């Protein structure tokens, strides 16, 4: 019975995904911000938006979100928006909602429901004692610089020169 329901759910979600891959991705402006014509701070400004304005996200690029508003569309600096809160529900102890999985990346993902399983909190850390078996395992997994570099190159990662940045004064 459950597997039937599961299959139906999957079919429903697959259909929804195909029809509306970016359904209702609403964001709210955290501070007054310009809406830019392109994802650049020096691009022309389509509009000056006020805190609290809402729009629908239709794309992303680097630090930018492509947002559609009732009267205009353009690009917002992603740091200036917030997504709606996702209430903690009894069936979701922190690994993401069912919808999150569906809207998520097109990859195989292991979904683990952790209902009833509690994680580690402050008291657990305070009360913890050294686990030498686990430490031995951890030490066994260490990667050499060479292994790390080979894997990075294999993944197409090329090191870049980037200077550290200061906090805004």
């Amino acid at each position: 019975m459950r597997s039937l329901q599961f299959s139906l759910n999957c079919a429903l979600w697959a259909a929804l995904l195909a029809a509306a891959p970016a359904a209702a991705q609403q964001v709210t402006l955290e501070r007054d911000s310009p809406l830019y014509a392109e994802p650049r701070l020096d691009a022309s400004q389509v509009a000056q938006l006020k805190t609290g304005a809402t729009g629908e996200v239709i794309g992303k690029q680097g630090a930018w979100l492509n947002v559609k508003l009732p009267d205009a569309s353009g690009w917002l600096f992603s740091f200036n928006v917030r997504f709606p809160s996702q209430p903690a529900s009894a069936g979701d102890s922190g690994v993401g909602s069912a919808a999150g999985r569906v809207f998520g990346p097109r990859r195989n993902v292991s979904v683990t429901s952790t209902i009833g399983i509690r994680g580690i909190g402050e008291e657990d850390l305070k009360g913890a004692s050294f686990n030498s078996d686990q430490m031995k395992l951890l030490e066994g997994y260490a990667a050499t610089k060479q292994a790390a570099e080979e894997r990075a190159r294999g993944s197409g990662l090329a090191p870049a020169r980037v200077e550290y940045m200061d906090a805004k004064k």
Partner: protein
Amino acid sequence: MKVAFRHGIAAALTAAVAGYAAAASIDLGRIFDVGRDLRTAATSLDEPEEIAVGREVAGRTLGAAPLVADAELQAYVNRVGRWIAMQSERPDLPWHFGVLDTPTVNAFAAPGGYVLITRGLYDMLSNEAQLAGVLGHEIGHIVQRHHVKVMQQSALVSAGARAAQRGDRNVLVNNLIGTGAEVLARGLDKDAEFEADRIGIVLAARAGYNPYGLVEVLHLLAARTADDTSLALLFKTHPAPGERLTQLGDALAPRVAVLPAGKEPAIRQVDPRTPPPAASKPAPVEGARSLQQQEGGTTIPSGGSPPSKGLDAGGILRGIFGR
């Protein structure tokens, strides 16, 4: 001469700290010799001592939650993490990375190169650039010795009790790093977290990743509400994710035009055959229930409801940041 003396004392103290760092090449006893009280020990930790303290903290954290039993995953995270750490000013620390088997959403840095990320947080990540941002943040704490500085402060605060404790080396060790892995539960000051965020962005960019992976993770976290128990400790020990986004945005704004676009490789998933996180305490009242499902792009837990009219931030964010 001084070093030899210290080693001699350390040997004598090994029994006193037995059980702590017994297998470490540098044992913690070395830090507490006759001429070095808690205060001087904390304020002048050299690198081997920093590593020994970090190993102790990491080992105790592993006592609270074991590693995910997926050797390939752990090896993968070590290669990714080491590559990012190689872009820092401390590339030759003995870096260790691990994924903890707990649904809690958090990541920890212990001095000397120990970085632990929870499975709860790992499972939220959509690509390797996001992982790079999280690891880069933790590496930033280690590079800047943030926790060592906290230890110094706490050692200074408790200096008055020092004399009474001098006879008990275990108490001294615990005074420096807290009972268990308490130092990780205390948290750092806000500026240290903001600084680690900025470093995380830069290290990820240097390593060739999309620099904004950490920003995406902060958006995911900002959409979680404060009553989410899996994030309780993270929210207690860090500034609100929204505040971190604001700070990062202000710091990054002058730089967005020159940061490289970088790559977003796929992230390795936890082996689906790996058992779900184990309860860290006696069996929960309702009983642990787990579902392991292979997603072909369309998986939801059985019994899940169709999309409601309301907004689901997790879904929205995954949709946006997933690709």
